[in-house]
């Protein structure tokens, strides 16, 4: 042990062949009867050999780093991946089926039409698409009046803030130019209100939709190829209404009609 302590600083020099002849002889003679010193000499030689190849050290570091990084990762078993894929596929198929079915029920109206008026009666497919169900619309003027009267607010002129915000909205679409009505119209009950527009680059089907201040659709005239439409408010309840004029999928304008 004492030999080892005395010669510990000489071990490295011995491996590097930097000892003098006398020092080397003395160290080897001491190592011959000291196993610990012999071990140290062998180990030092091994370490020198081990660190001689820099590429190997780099590779070892890369392997150890990869093992450490990959160990912390959560590995999802293959059966779970397959199960998740099947569930996603089934959900997508179901959604596609719903979408196609929905589009079929509402043939003649593009399901992708954007409707800025939230409609509590038909929220569309999972709320993404605004729905227009013909069957929900009042078929006669009397029924329309009943619907509005039954569902009016206490004050039928109460504006809806989200609708008011959109009144006067004009699209940048240049295919149709709306002449009348104005964004905010006041008319008596039992009067005629004219909607008119001009095509700027050829005939385009135009739709008019009128909703009450609850957001319920009371009139929906779709795909008109005329350049005007006259609304008779004879059977309409007094109150505030909002109209929306669209050309194809494009919103042209929005406004409000106050019937008193």
């Amino acid at each position: 042990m004492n030999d080892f302590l005395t010669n510990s600083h000489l071990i490295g020099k011995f491996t590097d062949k930097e000892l003098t002849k006398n020092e080397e002889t003395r160290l080897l003679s001491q190592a011959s009867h000291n196993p610990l010193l012999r071990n140290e000499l062998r180990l030092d030689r091994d370490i020198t050999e081990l660190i001689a190849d820099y590429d190997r050290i780099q590779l070892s570091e890369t392997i150890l780093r990869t093992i450490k990084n990959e160990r912390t990762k959560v590995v999802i078993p293959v059966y779970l991946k397959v199960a998740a894929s099947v569930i996603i596929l089934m959900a997508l198929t179901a959604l596609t089926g719903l979408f196609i079915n929905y589009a079929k029920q509402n043939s003649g109206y593009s399901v992708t039409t954007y409707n800025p008026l939230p409609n509590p009666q038909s929220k569309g497919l999972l709320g993404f698409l605004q729905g227009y169900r013909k069957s929900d619309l009042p078929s006669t003027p009397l029924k329309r009046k009943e619907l509005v009267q039954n569902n009016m607010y206490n004050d039928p002129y109460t504006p809806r803030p989200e609708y008011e915000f959109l009144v006067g909205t004009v699209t940048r679409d240049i295919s149709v130019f709306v002449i009348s009505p104005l964004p905010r119209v006041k008319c008596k009950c039992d009067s005629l209100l004219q909607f008119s527009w001009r095509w700027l680059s050829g005939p385009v089907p135009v739709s008019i939709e009128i909703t009450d201040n609850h957001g319920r659709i009371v009139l929906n005239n779709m795909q008109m190829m005329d350049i005007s439409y006259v609304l008779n408010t004879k059977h309409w309840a007094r109150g505030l209404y909002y109209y929306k004029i669209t050309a194809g999928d494009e919103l042209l304008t929005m406004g409000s009609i106050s019937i008193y």
Partner: protein
Amino acid sequence: MILLYSNDWLVKGLMEGKESCIKFIYREYFPMVRSIVSNHNGNLADAEDIFHDALIIIFNRLKNKQFTLKSSLKTYLFSVCRNLWRRRLERKYRLLYATDSYVNELEGCYTQETMEEEYAEKFRLYKKHFVELPEFCRALLTYYIRKTPLQDIARIMNYKDTEYVKARKYYCKNLLRKKILNDPECNQFMNYE
């Protein structure tokens, strides 16, 4: 996303120490190594050691120009890992149940493969203790491994001259040797007295 690589690409990547290649080998082949080890009384840490050692052995063999890889890397890795684990188990049981006959037996069957295995294990042990060294020692030895001239090391590390660099290097190697010799794992496989 895991891409599928060809055998040649994997061998080339292993030789160049490409991380993407090692990652691919780990992801694709480590489950196989783990199953070899866990089916024969081993745990995850053993499997990781075997995987590391096997790749180092394959790297060393591939560096030898006389060696040609005749099978796929996966097959070769499988056989190396299996042999490595078998020999490690044998040694473990010898140490446990027949300590007295160990030295003689080992001397009798000291093959090339045993040497390679021992070398890989020594290398892993060296790496393990190297990272535990003080910062300046790791830096100094890293420069030394990269064969940086002693003058440059002295300048980078603010040492007064090359003699002092040598003295520090011997000190660091002494420290490393002591750490390795004090490791119980060292006595298991190193052919020291």
